[in-house]
């Protein structure tokens, strides 16, 4: 569970290469792990953003927003995670679809990359669309470009690529091109919008959900989501689902349940830093 490499991709966004041979040996695109960095830490789900079975390593990208994730991002090379459990979730079925548009928002590019890479290896044409608030937050662009035939970017402030939403780019691509599948991963509103745009063009879509989790093994139900009118556990049935079947409204309401408490914890964390 040792950290072999650490790289700051953007503010609060860190990429780690972690020695986890057992996990790497079984990892497939779409899998994730649950990590704990210390005894008092939360169990944090992180996507396996890349893996190398031969080297026995997995790549994780962590966004420091809560207390545990911020502390994780302060770990350094030669530090270790206390626990790494995985690979978890259902792998994403990599098939030959034809042309696939990969729509990533913010940190969503991390879970997108292993899927896109595997799809490209299967001979699919990858169109890569990526959006972020501003230029500095457009991460992993080189990796994505290396496997994509086409790439386009959008930022909220126009600092790189199109000013506006990444779904605008999607709309344009779908208008001009025969597309077989859309994969959308990113903030919930972005995924919901991408699913709608794909549906308008009669294209099926896949999303990857990032719900609250505790155990990640199907034991608590804290990660439950409604898909096709049925309750599913994101950690064992997902995290990828058919976008048009997902009840985004419910997920949007469930996500912030602990936000006040997280603020309190972070506040305490900052006090400790100061004191």
């Amino acid at each position: 569970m040792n950290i072999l490499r650490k790289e700051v991709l953007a503010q609060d966004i860190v990429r780690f290469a972690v020695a986890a041979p057992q996990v790497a040996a079984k990892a497939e695109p779409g899998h994730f792990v649950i990590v704990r960095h210390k005894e008092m830490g939360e169990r944090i789900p992180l996507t396996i953003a890349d893996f190398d079975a031969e080297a026995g390593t997995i790549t994780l990208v962590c966004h420091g927003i809560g207390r545990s994730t911020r502390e994780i991002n302060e770990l350094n090379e030669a530090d270790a995670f206390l626990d790494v459990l995985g690979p978890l979730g259902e792998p994403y079925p990599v098939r030959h679809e034809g042309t696939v548009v990969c729509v990533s928002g913010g940190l969503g590019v991390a879970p997108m990359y292993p899927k896109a890479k595997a799809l490209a290896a299967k001979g699919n044409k990858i169109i890569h669309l990526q959006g972020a608030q501003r230029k500095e937050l457009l991460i992993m662009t080189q990796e994505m470009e290396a496997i994509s035939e086409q790439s386009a970017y959008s930022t909220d402030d126009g600092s790189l690529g199109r000013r506006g939403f990444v779904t605008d780019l999607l709309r344009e691509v779908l208008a001009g091109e025969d597309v077989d599948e859309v994969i959308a991963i990113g903030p919930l509103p972005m995924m919901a919008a991408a699913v709608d745009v794909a549906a308008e063009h009669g294209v099926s879509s896949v999303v990857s959900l990032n719900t609250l989790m505790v155990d990640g093994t199907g034991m608590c139900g804290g990660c439950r989501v409604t898909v096709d009118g049925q309750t599913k556990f994101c950690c064992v049935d997902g995290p990828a689902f058919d976008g048009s079947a997902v009840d985004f409204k419910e997920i949007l309401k469930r996500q912030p349940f602990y936000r006040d408490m997280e603020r309190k914890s972070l506040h305490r964390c900052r006090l400790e830093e100061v004191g």
Partner: protein
Amino acid sequence: MAPRQEMNKLPKGARTGFDEVALGYTWEQARAEAERCLQCRSPQCSKGCPVGVDIPAFLQAIVHGNIGRAYQILQDQNRLPAICGRVCPQETQCEGRCILAKKGEPVAVGALERYCADWARQHYNGTLNRADSGQAKAGQKAAVVGSGPAGLTAAADLAVAGLEVTLFEALHAAGGVLRYGIPEFRLPKDIVDYEIGQIRDLGVSIQPNYLIGKTLDIPDLFSQGYGAVFIGAGAGLPNFLGLEGENLNGVYSANEFLTRVNLMKAFRFPEYDTPIRVGKRVAVIGAGNVAMDAARTAVRLGASEVSIVYRRSRAEMPARLEEIVNAEEEGIRFQLLTNPLEVLGDENYQVQGLRCQRMQLGEPDGSGRRRPQPIPDSAFVLEVDTVVVAVGQGPNPILIRSNPNLQLDARGYIEVDPDTLMTNIPGVFAAGDIVTGAATVIAAMGEGRRAARSILEYLDCSS
């Protein structure tokens, strides 16, 4: 006949934190209680014990003041006595069969078991006798999946027989329900640590963070040289009722609620990072041990009004008697013969109430219990902001899903040969809740032991 000794408990007013409520016997109490045993010629108590502890003998040893000996007798059949003394439903097992139970005051076997185990832990620091009977050949290995009571017991027995045993656990800490389900105030985790430590000392290698079916699969275990695999994966999949509003904010499965508090120590937030949010008014649906644990936990997390909502009557409540009494003492209300219909929420998806209906008991159903039937026009709303669903569990899904060739019964649990406890896959055995459905700690231990015996036979190393 002297009256049964009452165990000291934390006074009601002092039960604000997660300190253990039951305080155990003093030596004088223990001796007086053990002396109540009539030493029956054909004792029924031991027959009521799923692992067959020689109860009269251990009680006799207490009477003679030889607690070390009493502990050994317990240990011979039960490797988790401090745990079982605290959580077994004695009233339906040993104590239920005690001849004195007919007069309503059976010998307090559970409290005495606890007394001996606690004494041994404090005074004797005794490691389990490693009866290294050495039937196993050098290098023979067995894998155990799941570290609940079934897995722990099987692992210990296999290790004692000389096998190299590896115990794989999905979570970051061992113990199964003992770790993530049963709260600190009923089963302190340092006791769980201690008794698991004793099993580790037998030579069992405990590997947390291994989800079998994902990290490794059963065929991997065989190719790594394990001659047999024991599955004790438990019944951890939380049932929901399928009510309207069950996915609102503020609705927890009991498993999530208890896991946050016990495994992740959310009761010490923000010292520990995992949060839990409990409102002022909490409804817990269900009336088993899980429901009592959730309700009593909610009280300790600061809820001012906690109700158990149960559609049958008091007589059918499946929880241990002692926990029902404790719950009552802690001010938990019992909404019996009450059936939940719908969780109500506000525009922010936050729970606002639980719409229920009153019930009455009709004819007996398949389980022999009288079937509850709705009373017409009796719907009402219980005003709550948190709902905990504690209506049972199903089989843990992952191992089963990743082994589609594993034969299951009609309810989805693993099917085993009733004599050998072997599954349809040769060399793969299973026991505990993953076979029987949610049952008890001691039943899981008894079956774990039986499976270990047949694994030894299968590997040709039984004595």
